[in-house]
């Protein structure tokens, strides 16, 4: 019996498990990629938001730095529409800021200037954002704060023998040795006296009044002087560092130094150290306001802005550097008292002003500018009601 042998046959069964597995992996990978994409987008959105916030706060910090370090000389000299870089730097966290100040006003009104401070903040890193905030500001240019003459007044003025009123620009003697003190101030002479009636200026034979001209008469000084004095008082008395509530008689005014060696600005009898360029108080310029009559009987000195609601009497050789604004009358007795800068004396009761023998008022543009710039008068203020805004790019 023959054995029949059949050839072996291999059947290809064509399984699909591998195909399905690959398909599943592909689908899952696609879903995972989508999820990863969404997650990455969220991450980017979150980081971008965080960086944008950091840039925004850097811009705001820049504004504060610019205000704290306001460069009066730089902005005062800006023509209309010109821009100056006021501050730039980097925060500890790495964000950078740059603040540019543009002068907006056309110079039509001497009493005020307007500025736009634009601060750009930039966050660090690859996705660093940029934000800009702006602040609208107003400030008084120092040259135009006051004064048209060494002495602006009305009513009678008596200058005794040896008394001096000089409109020729003067650098005070104690500052002359250091050329840096008045380096940025161009000299500019003024009249010695501006008054409403030149006939009421009485000069004794040895009195000296000079300037260009020595005595000028304003056609209608009444309204102008009054409104200006009132305006100056309104604004500046509110900013006073030192206030005497009523009549005051001061006998000791001199600079004080605190324990760490700094100028003791809280001391009410410390009016700076104008005669001592190396003193810690040399750059201290207080605004002093006396609500009544003020008499200073002191051989000392002071500087800044002195506002007196009543009469002012200087005696004992007291020297003042800066701006005097007096509503009453001014008396400089025969003991060598001096004013360097300018005096604006309204003389409300039309009594007689007196500049005694050895006393004097000398116009000093440098003294005026130092006092105005050094006091709070030059700190710019945001515009009323609306000053801050974000500039969208």
């Amino acid at each position: 019996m023959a054995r029949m042998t059949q050839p072996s046959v291999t059947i290809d069964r064509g399984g699909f498990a591998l195909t399905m597995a690959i398909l599943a992996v592909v689908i899952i990978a696609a879903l995972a990629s989508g999820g990863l994409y969404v997650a990455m987008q969220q991450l980017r959105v979150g980081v971008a938001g965080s960086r944008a916030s950091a840039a925004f706060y850097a811009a705001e910090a820049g504004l504060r730095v610019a205000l704290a370090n306001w460069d009066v000389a730089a902005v005062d000299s800006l023509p209309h529409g010109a821009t100056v870089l006021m501050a730039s730097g980097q925060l500890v966290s790495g964000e950078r800021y740059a603040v540019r100040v543009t002068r907006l006003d056309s110079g039509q009104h001497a009493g005020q200037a307007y500025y736009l401070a634009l601060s750009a903040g930039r966050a660090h890193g690859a996705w660093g954002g940029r934000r800009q905030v702006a602040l609208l500001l107003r400030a008084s240019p120092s040259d135009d704060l006051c004064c048209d003459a060494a002495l602006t007044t009305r009513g009678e003025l008596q200058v005794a023998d040896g008394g001096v009123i000089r409109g020729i620009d003067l650098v005070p003697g104690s500052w002359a040795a250091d050329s840096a003190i008045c380096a940025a101030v161009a000299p500019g002479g003024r009249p010695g006296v501006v008054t409403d009636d030149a006939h009421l200026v009485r000069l004794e034979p040895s009195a000296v009044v000079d300037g260009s001209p020595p005595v000028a008469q304003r056609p209608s000084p009444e309204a102008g002087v009054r409104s200006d004095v009132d305006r100056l008082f309104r604004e500046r008395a509110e900013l006073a560092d030192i206030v005497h509530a009523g009549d005051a008689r001061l006998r000791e005014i001199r600079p004080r130094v605190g324990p760490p060696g700094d100028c003791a600005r809280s001391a009410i009898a410390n009016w700076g150290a104008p005669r001592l360029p190396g003193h810690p108080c040399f750059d201290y310029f207080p605004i002093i306001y006396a609500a009544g009559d003020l008499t200073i009987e002191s051989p000392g000195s002071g500087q800044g802005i002195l506002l007196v609601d009543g009469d002012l009497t200087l005696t004992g050789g007291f020297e003042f550097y800066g701006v005097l604004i007096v509503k009453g009358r001014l008396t400089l007795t025969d003991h060598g008292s001096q004013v360097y800068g300018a005096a604006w004396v309204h003389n409300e009761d039309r009594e007689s002003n007196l500049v005694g023998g050895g006393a004097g008022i000398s116009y000093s543009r440098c003294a005026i500018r130092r006092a105005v710039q050094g006091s709070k008068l030059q700190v710019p203020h945001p515009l009323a009601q609306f000053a801050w805004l974000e500039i969208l790019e």
Partner: protein
Amino acid sequence: MVLALSVATVVLGSLAAVLLRQQRYYAAHAQLAATRDAARIAAEVLGAELRALSTAAGDLYAMSGDSVALRSTTGLGVTCSVAGDHISLRRVTGSFGHSESDSVLIFRDGDPGTARDDRWVALDTRRLLRADAGRCPDGRTPELGLAVGGSLVGVTVGAPVRGFRPYVYKLYLGGDGRWWLGQRLRSGRVQPLAGPFAAPDSGGLRLEYLSGAGVPTRNPREVVQVHISIKAQSSVPIPGTRGADFLHESLSISVHLRNSRAEDMSGGEEASAVE
């Protein structure tokens, strides 16, 4: 054969379940992202609008717990020349006069020696003029000209000009039955900005107005700070172990109004928290 089919069924079933879960997971993730985006956008828009308000100037028209009507700044320019009822502007950023509701506030300095009488005067913008009308004091060409309704007496060259538009921000019920943050001109149609959000009575949008003392106030002119709470909602229900439900994302920020006390540059803190 039967065994093979059984195994294949089990494998395919498992695979389908995995895919379905994956799909649900990523869909939920996308919904979460979109919901967070809606909350962020709402906070950003409201924060930016509120931050620049000057309550002293009357920028806050009306306020309630879930809506606010305000004067939105659209642009800033600097007066270059003034002639009759025409002003020309330089240094223009943003937009002026792009809608009938647009107006301008012009800074008017009274006595130059004091800031006490300084005011921003609101004037209607009647039309835009040729940009090259007139010249600036420095000889340059102005960027924009405006004809305004109202007196320009006392407006000087260099005076800032602020363009503004009155907006109401509120949650509105959309055609889909969901609540959306909308922006509307006071007499216009609603423009949806972000959403959807939870219903107002469920905390979709809550605004709390604080005075300088940090206490709630109802006087728009006393407002110094606004606390904003937002609860965004996913656009579709997300399936979960206890059935499908909407996903919620909450965001709170405090905004200090920078112009509320502009004179002291007090600034302020903003804290945010995402629940």
